[in-house]
């Protein structure tokens, strides 16, 4: 299998990868948790801190203006990156978790008026979700008196439009779905599922955390009201992310962070909230993070979205084929071709032990429930070992993974 990219050259641009672990070259295969940052992202953040650092908005001095410009340019860059059109807006958050909390809270807390979600309404959430796209909806249902309905996967971990159609009804207000299941690597047909839910009158929420490193959704082509993502899973910094979506939908959210910068005016007894995006961005934002996030978007487009996607898919296929050939290994969602994640279980070998033994070969993977306990319970697999690929990984590393798993199994069995 030939590499679609020149991963060795690319990896040289990622200072965090140029190290040895347990006397072996680091093979960083934990990208679904956090990717590494290329030099240009680190440089962009440092340049901002050295030249433009100041609080944004309302400052009349030069640095405040530079900082405000940098923040707003980052917003514009990210909107373009996500294929937003004039009907869309993007607010910066600390990441996917905050974005999803903002939506679930904002639809179930009345704030100054009445909440969108009412008793007897229905929220549909897929069972492929990370806890960050499940727990906020569990609480939103309790807060509002709405019912939480689960779109269950089949035994192979796939979601089906016909199952969703059966759950949708006149009381469906929200449908929340992942663009890529972090625990299994499943890539649901989210375009079709979101469209179906929107047709039924639901607001649609897409958790794009796993998609942003290789298969970037295009907002203008999706029936998507809210799209949540994180910087640190797309070659950008930690502590920054966004909630993008339709302005009309974002305007229905009760703000989660109340305070400075998000009000039009405040009397002694009540505020008047500002317009978008400020109303959802209370407090001083992570400006350097937003700058780094925009630089990460530039990096992805400079390398090429399609090339990155083809590369990580081929690595996933390589690893899945190699692992499946080992005795007693079951790869989850083996059919998932559009995925950067290979998650597997091994007979008589616990993921924690595999993870430790792989680390001894310099191979970083993640083990456990991957914050998706109900999914793994439903699939009956229990905890898994997960390798996830990014632009800088190579087929040689996929091969090292397979070999190291084989050798760990020999020790443990």
């Amino acid at each position, binding site marked *: 299998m030939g590499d679609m990219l020149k991963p060795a050259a690319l990896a040289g641009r990622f200072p965090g990868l140029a190290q040895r672990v*347990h006397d*072996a070259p680091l093979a960083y295969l934990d990208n679904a948790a956090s990717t590494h940052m290329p030099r240009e992202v680190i440089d962009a953040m440092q340049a901002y801190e050295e030249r433009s650092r100041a609080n944004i908005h309302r400052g009349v001095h030069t640095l405040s203006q530079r900082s405000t410009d940098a923040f707003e340019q980052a917003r514009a860059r990210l909107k373009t990156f996500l294929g937003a059109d004039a009907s869309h807006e993007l607010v910066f958050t600390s990441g996917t978790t905050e974005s999803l909390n903002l939506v679930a809270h904002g639809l179930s807390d009345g704030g100054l008026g009445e909440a969108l979600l009412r008793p007897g309404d229905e929220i549909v959430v897929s069972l492929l979700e990370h806890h960050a796209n499940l727990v906020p909806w569990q609480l939103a249902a309790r807060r509002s008196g709405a019912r939480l309905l689960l779109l269950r996967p089949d035994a192979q971990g796939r979601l089906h439009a016909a199952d969703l159609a059966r759950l949708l009804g006149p009381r469906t207000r929200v449908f929340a779905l992942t663009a890529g299941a972090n625990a299994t690597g499943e890539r649901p047909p989210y375009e079709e599922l979101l469209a179906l839910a929107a047709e039924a009158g639901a607001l649609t929420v897409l958790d794009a955390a796993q998609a942003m490193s290789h298969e970037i959704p295009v907002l203008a082509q999706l029936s998507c009201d809210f799209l949540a993502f994180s910087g640190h899973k797309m070659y950008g910094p930690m502590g920054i992310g966004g909630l993008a979506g339709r302005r009309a939908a974002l305007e229905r959210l009760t703000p989660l962070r109340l305070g400075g910068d998000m009000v039009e005016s405040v009397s002694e007894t009540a505020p008047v909230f500002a317009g978008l995006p400020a109303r959802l961005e209370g407090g001083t934002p992570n400006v350097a993070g937003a700058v780094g996030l925009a630089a990460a978007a530039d990096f992805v487009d400079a390398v090429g979205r399609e090339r990155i996607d083809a590369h990580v898919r081929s690595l996933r296929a390589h690893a899945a084929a190699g692992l499946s050939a080992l005795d007693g290994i079951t790869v989850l969602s083996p059919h998932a071709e559009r995925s950067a994640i290979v998650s597997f279980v091994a007979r008589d070998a*616990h*993921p*924690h*032990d595999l993870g*430790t*033994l792989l*680390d*001894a*070969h310099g191979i970083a993977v993640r*083990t*456990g*429930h991957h914050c998706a*306990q109900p999914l*793994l319970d439903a699939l009956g697999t*229990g*905890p898994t070992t997960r390798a996830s690929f990014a632009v800088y990984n190579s087929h040689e590393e996929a091969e090292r993974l397979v070999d190291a798993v084989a*050798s760990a199994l020999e*020790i*443990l069995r």
Partner: protein
Amino acid sequence: MNDVADDLYQEVVLEHKRAPRHFGQLAEATHEAQGRNPQCGDQVRVQLRVHDGKVEDIGFSGQGCAICIASTSLMTEAVLGRETGTACALQQRFRDVLTGQVDPEEASLGKLVSLAGVRRYPSRIKCALLGWHALMHALQQQGEATTEEPKP
């Protein structure tokens, strides 16, 4: 690589992982408790039959990694027939070794010393202590089955 195998996966450990001792439900338990590791879902239930302050019988069930299962299995061997106070003291010494407060050579751990390497892997310490937490929890509580034992 061999370092890790030597440190963590010594033959004693692997042998207990493959064939855990006292594995299964215990009849007429006087004390029991469950330990859970929420990160990975590992769970171990420890059951005891305590009489006159002594561990007359012990059993465990559940699922976990090699370190967790081997540690719990070795624990059952170490505390069977011992006074509950002795079991608690052993738990304390084992814990002190894993958290780096006492050298393994000074702790009189017996076969448990084969798990001393875990202290060099901070993310795995809770694996080795899960069964012991359940043991302590069981001894500190009234048994679910009968209530004849006072708290130690």
